[in-house]
Every structure is written in C-alpha cells, then in structure tokens.
C-alpha cells in the first residue's frame, strides 16, 4: 500500500517539486518551488473548493430553518432528523456535500506535506530515504540537495522569530472568519468561536515546532484560500459581517 502511494502520488510530487526548484535561482529555489507547487495544487483543486464553499454556504443559509425545527420538535431527535432530511431534499442540498471535496483534497495535502519534508532532507537518513523516491533525470540530480534558505528562513528548521507563526495563525483566522457564520444558538456559537481561535493558535504552535518549509506551505495555502473565497463568495464574507446573528434572527422570525 505504501509502495502504491509512493508510486502514484508521492514520487511524482517529490520529483515535480525538485524539478520545479531547479528552474529558480539557487538562492531561493526551494522556497519558490513550494510556493509555486502550492499555487498549482490550490488552483487545480478550485472546482472542488468551489463546490465545498457552495455547499457550506447553502447549509449556512438553511440554519434558521433547522433551528426552527429543533425548537418545534424539542427532544424528539428522530423527528428532527426526518424533517431536516426533508428540508435538505427540498433545497436540493446534500448535508455531506461539503465534506467529500474536502476528503478528496486530503490525500493531496498529505502528499504535498510529505514531498516538502522528504525533499528538504534535513538529516542524512532523510537524504538517503529521498534517494528511493527520485527519478533518473539530470534536472532532478542538479536540484539535490535543495537549498533550504529562503528569505529569513531556513526551511529545514523551525522559525524562531515568531513572524511565520503570526502570519500562519493570522491568515488562518481570517480564512476561517470569512466562512464561519455566527450562530444564534449559544452552544454552537461557543463551539465555533473556540474553533475560530484554537485552529490558528494550534497551527501557530505547529509553526514553531515544524521545519519552516511546512508553515510556508500553510501560509501560501491560507492566502490562496482567502483569495479563492473572496472571489467565489464575492467579498470578505463573515469577516466584515459580524452582525449576521442579528440579521439571521429576524429572518427566522419573519418566516415563522
């Protein structure tokens, strides 16, 4: 299974990354290669992201109706489920529709993670391991070993300056804030506000632990995510609409 994963996904990505890095000036080759490959992968997965965002948006728009059902049927969970399925069917929305594009992307992200880390080959064992994944090509050979210096970063070492951690955490918060609809339900609001803070904090923490090639990938990915959401949803979403709770509540009352 691991061999198949390497053959089909990981090896092409590692070799692509290294071939790409050989195109750039040695001083910034691998940093630029990470950025370009992340952009390519994000652009290639735009149809999936678009689908995911649309499903998420549709689900969010249905929240007032769902809340109505929850109030109406109280603790009868079976009835709530039945009614919710009816509502989804009427609206033509698949409740797990926003999940599968994410699941499809997940292996791609894992492969990208692995290819960055393996290509960086920070230790002799890592470099030996990298030799098992490479194609026989002069371009690949010239890229080995990669120059891990990029701007102020050593991509093979964690960034001690906190700059990258703040950038990763900040962009992640913005990206999440753009899509997280404030809920009228206090419990849900508490959960989503926790998530909104915790994810950026966790990734900020990871940034200080992992070789900075990986946080660079997260940062670029977040920035592209923000841009994609801005284009697809036509604005800053909930980042600039914190009053969505109050606007959602009258709409729900009106329907009642």
């Amino acid at each position, binding site marked *: 299974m691991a061999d198949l994963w390497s053959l089909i996904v990981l090896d092409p990505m590692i070799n692509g990354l290294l071939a790409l890095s050989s195109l750039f000036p040695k001083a910034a080759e691998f940093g630029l290669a990470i950025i370009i490959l992340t952009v390519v992968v994000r652009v290639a997965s735009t149809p999936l992201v678009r689908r995911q965002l649309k499903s998420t948006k549709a689900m969010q728009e249905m929240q007032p109706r769902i809340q109505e059902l929850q109030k109406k049927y109280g603790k009868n969970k079976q009835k709530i489920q039945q009614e919710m399925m009816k509502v989804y069917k009427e609206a033509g929305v698949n409740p797990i529709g926003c999940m599968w594009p994410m699941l499809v992307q997940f292996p791609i992200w894992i492969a990208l*993670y692995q290819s960055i*880390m393996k290509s960086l080959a920070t230790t*002799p*064992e890592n470099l*030996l391991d990298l030799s098992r994944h490479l194609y026989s090509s*002069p371009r690949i050979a010239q890229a080995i070993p990669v*120059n891990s210096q990029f701007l102020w970063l050593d991509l093979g070492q964690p960034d001690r300056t906190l700059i990258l951690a703040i950038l990763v955490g900040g962009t992640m918060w913005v990206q999440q804030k753009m899509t997280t609809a404030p809920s009228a339900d206090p419990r849900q609001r508490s959960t989503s506000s*926790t998530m909104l803070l915790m994810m950026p904090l966790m990734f900020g923490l990871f940034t200080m632990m*992992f070789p900075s090639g990986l946080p660079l990938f997260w940062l670029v990915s977040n920035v592209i995510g923000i841009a994609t959401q801005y284009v697809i949803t036509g604005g800053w979403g909930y980042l600039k609409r914190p009053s969505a709770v109050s606007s959602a509540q009258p709409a729900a009352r009106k329907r009642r």
Partner: protein
Amino acid sequence: MRIKVLVWVGLLVVGLAASGCLGSTGPQGYSGVVSSDGILYMGSADGKVVAVSPAARAQGLSFPSSDGEWSFAIMMPSKSFFSCGSSSVAANIYSTPVAANGLICVGIYDGKVMMVSPADRARDLPFPQMRSGEWIYPRGDDVIEAIVGSAVATDDSVYVCCSDGRVYALDISYGDERWRSDPLGAKLWTTPVVDGESIYVSTFDGHIYALSVANGSRLPWSFEAESGFSSSPVLYENTIFVGSFDRNLYAVRIGSDQPLWKFAGGNWFWCRPVVEEGVVYAGCLDGKVYAIDAASGKGLWSRPFDTGSPVVASPLMVGESLVVASDSGDIYVINPTTGTGDRIRNRENDEESSIESQILAPFCEQDGIVYIRGQDNYLYSVDVARRDIKAKLSLS
C-alpha cells in the same frame, strides 16, 4: 465546556496525525567502528562513545570490563523550542571516531568536536581532562553546525567538515582553532582527504576543492561537476574518486578540469569507495557493488554483485575478500577477482538477513573479524573466514 475539551482533543489528534504523516524523522546517527591498539571505538545510537575490547568479549566478561572498555555519554542542551530550563538530550553521532596520538577524536552532529582520552574515560573522570589532552571544540555552550563526516587527524591537527560549509582545522593537543575555511557552498557532510600540503573536499554543490593545510585558503585547482557530490572522496595515485547525485562515480585527476571517467550506477554512490591495486570497489544505493578499473573506468566483473538492498556502508577489504553490508542487514563476502560471493547466514533463521538490523555505518576489521554496528545499536562480530556471526553486544 465539554465541547471545548472535545475540540481541543480533536485538534491535538489532527496535529499528531499530521505530524505522523510528514514522513520525516529526526537524526538517528550511524557512527561506524574503528580499531586502535586492540580496542574498538564507536558512537552509539544513544549518544555515547563506546570502547569495546574484543579480548574481553572473547572471555565473556561483563561489559564494560576493566580491559580498556568504557562508555562515555555525551549530552547536549535540548534545541526544542518548548524545552524548559536546562534540559539536555543525548547527542547524535554520525562521525566515525578517529584514533589520534593515543586519544580518540569524534565529531558530534549537534556541533561539537571532542578529543577523549581512553584512560580517563575508563576511570569516568569529569570531561575534559586537559592534562590528558582531552578537549572540546567549541568550548562551553557554543556549538558549530552539524558534523556528519569523520575527522581526519595528522601529527598536529584535526580537520573536520561542517554543515556550515566550512572545513575546520583544530590543534590536536588543545583543540584551539587553527583556521576555518571560507564557506565552500552548501553543507559539508563528507570526510576530507588530507594529502601532504593539501586538503581535498567534495561538496553537495558539485565541487572538489583543494585547500591549503597551512591556512585553509583555496588552492588554484578545483573541479566542478553539474550535480552535487554525494560521497566522501578517496585519493589514489593522484586521482580522486567520488560519487555524485547524478548517479555516476567520478574519477578526477588532480589538476584537471575534466573527469578522467564517469561510471554510471542505478542510484547514488553514497558510500566512500575502496581502491585496492588499481581497482575501485564502489557500493551503490541501487543495491549493487561495482568493481571498476581505476585507470580506464571499465567495469571488471561480468556483472555487478547484487545485494538486493542499498549499500550505504563502505565496503572493506579483509585479506583476499571484499566484505559488503547492505541496508537490509545482509553481509556478503565477495571474491574481488570474480565478483561472486556468499551471504553470511543468520544463525537463528536462514531466511532472515544476516543480522536483523539496518547497516548504515562504516565497519572495521581486527584479526580477521569484522565489527559492524547495526542501527539496532548492537555491535556484531563477523568471522569472515567461517562466514559466521560470532557474537553481538548491546551498546545501550
């Protein structure tokens, strides 16, 4: 509150899973074994320099015996961002120890070079004992970049390549820095060659540089290839033999800007080749061992010897035989003339590899016995004549 805890736990699980999927591990070390004055010295996987007496092992004494055996644990300050206070961790050792004027010199991956006295380490005295010639470079808490290649000792100096791209020359008696070269490009993970007034270094960015022994300045000659060099160089009759990331073994005559020849393998020539009587024996990560005519670059065997697994540790000539160990733990004794050989059998299970451990580290021979440190942190003794694993000793 419960939801928040669940969210936290979920995020932690995701984080740990992500880190597990990264496919990258920290340094493990693969220090080799060297023999000096009847004692074997090596770095262990748990950051110790260990001295083993084959004579004491033959007598079945408990380790360490008083027969010159000891183990010296090297601790380094933790580099983790989240470590508290003055926490320390075991050092990582890739460098094979080198005997120098009755002492043992070893480079540490964590950025130190150490000269240790076997007599003082056997007595477990505080390190360093300056009066015995022990030293540490740099002193105190200072470190240089990672050291992977082995040091080379001459009468008055120790030369070592460093990951900061420099070669360091240290006074053999006191460990003072005599000079450090200008950066020679990317990190240097190789062992230099010292020949008369010159030091030859192969680099990851595809150069072979000649430096002055006196002051580390670059001498007029250097050689440049299109790809980086993966192995340490070997000098034989004014020709340097070195493996490259372009999967070729290069022969470069000193003074020439063109290779004498290039020999293509199926992967990198990672380990240092062995040159004996005009023949280059080179292990390759494609799992094969090649015998190549040093003058012409022609393969000498009808076909290369296939071990079936990458050859990371340098081959070793033992009498009339070539001993080769593969990454999977198989050990072979090869006839260097014909290129045919036998696999040394596993004592317990013939189906298994010779030893049940990866072999990455260089090995040595003493009195017809080959000593190999496996990545399982055991020292194996191999009787070449009998094609038998004699014994193993835990270094932990």
